[in-house]
């Protein structure tokens, strides 16, 4: 915590300066809304029962992107969403609040970013929700999609790829000040595109250890390898995740564990074959949350999806999208076991989502 003394006031100052958008040379206002219907079934005893049948605004991003100069710009994003945990049925989260400085360091195509920003780990930072489900590292709580931090990120020469190094708070955007992983977290990420259609990437993230912290303190080493193969209408994403957790203040290392998993996600775009922008998507996840034999939690998840992108922006990116997903999650232990999968249950879920975006430069 002591080590964050200088970071927290600096970041807080940056974040609170963000609303001073009147200084901006240009201001883009944007948003993204996800209206979703979810229908989920699962076992209760020997019966299959409906566990969820609901409509929700899962995400309601409101986004301000001021540009202060050609080399300095920012982003301030809040997420307004449906939730039962608030009495009014809606919640609000701060998602991004950062500034990009492009010429602070005189290296071509390098940006210094300060504030609540993307976490450049695995596929989480450019996961565009082609399927409704989250990126694997997000889904299995390996990394968060945004966190408070300082990063250097940029492009390798000649379109060879990208990189990022940085230091984060380590708690993610949903928590601050809680006594969890509060020492700075260090990140390195590189992605290369050696030839057209082949992308290879690797990420590493670890936090430091302060033995005086609470017993719940975890030291984590996170590693991720990704590959993407794209040819014509076919685009296949693959990701392998490894997580090593130590509890320095728990004697004998009895609580220490490792977790690992992988994902394969093929996407077929029918846009080049027909006049409609339709995507067919599959996904297979295998996630072993712990190697502890007494607490087995091996998940196999299969997702099938169809996207119909029926409106696009000037850059041909989907602006309005109808998504349909079928997700089947199954744990490979006998469901009757007392500690089965940490009380998680096998489920089958259908989700239908209307997602739309807007983006305008108002100044």
């Amino acid at each position, binding site marked *: 915590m002591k080590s964050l003394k200088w970071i927290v006031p600096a970041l807080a100052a940056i974040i609170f300066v963000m609303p001073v958008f009147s200084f901006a040379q240009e201001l883009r206002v944007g948003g993204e809304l996800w209206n979703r219907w979810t229908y989920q079934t699962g076992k209760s005893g020997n019966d299959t029962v409906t566990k969820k049948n609901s409509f929700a605004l899962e995400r309601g991003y409101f986004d301000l992107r001021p540009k202060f100069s050609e080399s300095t710009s920012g982003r301030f994003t809040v997420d307004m969403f449906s939730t039962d945990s608030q009495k009014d049925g809606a919640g609000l989260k701060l998602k991004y609040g950062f500034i990009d400085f492009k010429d602070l360091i005189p290296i071509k195509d390098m940006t210094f970013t300060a504030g609540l920003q993307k976490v450049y780990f695995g596929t989480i930072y450019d996961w565009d929700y082609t399927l409704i489900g989250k990126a694997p590292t997000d889904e299995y709580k390996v990394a968060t999609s945004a966190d408070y931090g300082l990063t250097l990120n940029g492009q390798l020469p000649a379109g060879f790829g990208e990189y990022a190094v940085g230091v984060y708070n380590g708690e993610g955007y949903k928590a601050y000040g809680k006594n969890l992983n509060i020492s700075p977290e260090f990140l390195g990420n590189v992605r290369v*595109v050696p030839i*057209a259609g082949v992308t290879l990437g690797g990420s590493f993230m670890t936090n430091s250890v302060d033995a005086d912290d609470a017993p719940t303190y975890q030291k984590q080493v996170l590693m991720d390898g990704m590959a993407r193969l794209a040819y014509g209408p076919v685009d296949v994403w693959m990701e392998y995740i490894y997580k090593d957790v130590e509890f320095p203040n728990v004697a004998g290392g009895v609580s220490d564990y490792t977790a690992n998993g992988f994902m394969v996600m093929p996407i077929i775009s029918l846009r*080049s074959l027909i006049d409609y922008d339709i995507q067919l998507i599959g996904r297979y996840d295998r996630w072993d949350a712990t190697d502890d034999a007494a607490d087995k939690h091996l998940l196999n998840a299969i997702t099938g999806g169809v996207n119909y992108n029926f409106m696009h922006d000037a*850059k041909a990116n989907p602006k309005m999208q109808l998504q349909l997903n079928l997700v089947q999650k199954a744990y490979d232990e006998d469901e009757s076991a007392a500690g089965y999968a940490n009380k998680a249950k096998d489920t089958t879920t259908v989700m239908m989502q209307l997602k739309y975006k807007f983006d305008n430069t108002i100044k």
Partner: protein
Amino acid sequence: MKRTIIIFSVVVALLLTLPLGAQRRKNQITTSGSTTVLPIAQAAAEAYMDKYPNINISVRGGGSGVGVAALQNGTVDIANSSRPMKSKEIASCKSKGINPSAYAIANDGIAMVVHPSNTVTNLSVAQIRDIYTAKIKNWNQVGGPNMPIVIISRDVASGTFEVFNEKALKGGKVDGTAQMLASNNAVVTTVASTPGAIGYAGLGYVNKDIKVIKVANVMPTEDTVKNASYPLSRKLYMFTSGKAKGEIGKFIAFIQSDEGQELVKKQGFISLK
């Protein structure tokens, strides 16, 4: 479980019936991007379609960045651009399986333009930078009349802006009072109607209603642009996914041919040869 799968299958079936009967049109070439390249692409498309009536070419503007993004997304065959591709754009194309190939189709100089009544005839690159960053605010500071300078610029999606930013501003911040306009035409029209204005546009947009001034004592002419002695000279490009083949290749070869380069000159730009 069965009921869930039935629901899913029914909705998939409904979605897939939507595009039935639709067929992608053959013999169609689509291009979009730079508004600077737009008149060349339009003139070339018209001439090419006259020659080959079975080919249909659609040409849209939007800015260089828009054209490159559309190429990445596979919705156009050719991205028109008034600047080279950026590292990020190349990486993004390649990661989607698109190997961008660049074809130079013309030379151009970014002409610095003022109102015809303005007596200033020359500015150095440093003076241009100081004007656009508002260190110089009156024409009398550069030998002109006692008149406030009105800064006219292109918007940031424009390739012309990016080349101007790199070659003239060298990273300097355009002053907040500048009018950021979406096209070369808008710049020229605004400068023509504003006595204190300064703007910049591709040579193809220069007309008698505005005055072109020298930059570092060099006028943008065919010779000075071709030999790059004009400080704001550049090439104009068409980008394709992989090597241009078939009708797309023939269309680009047509623009690069003597016949196509005559069209380039007719539009007020400088030919490659």
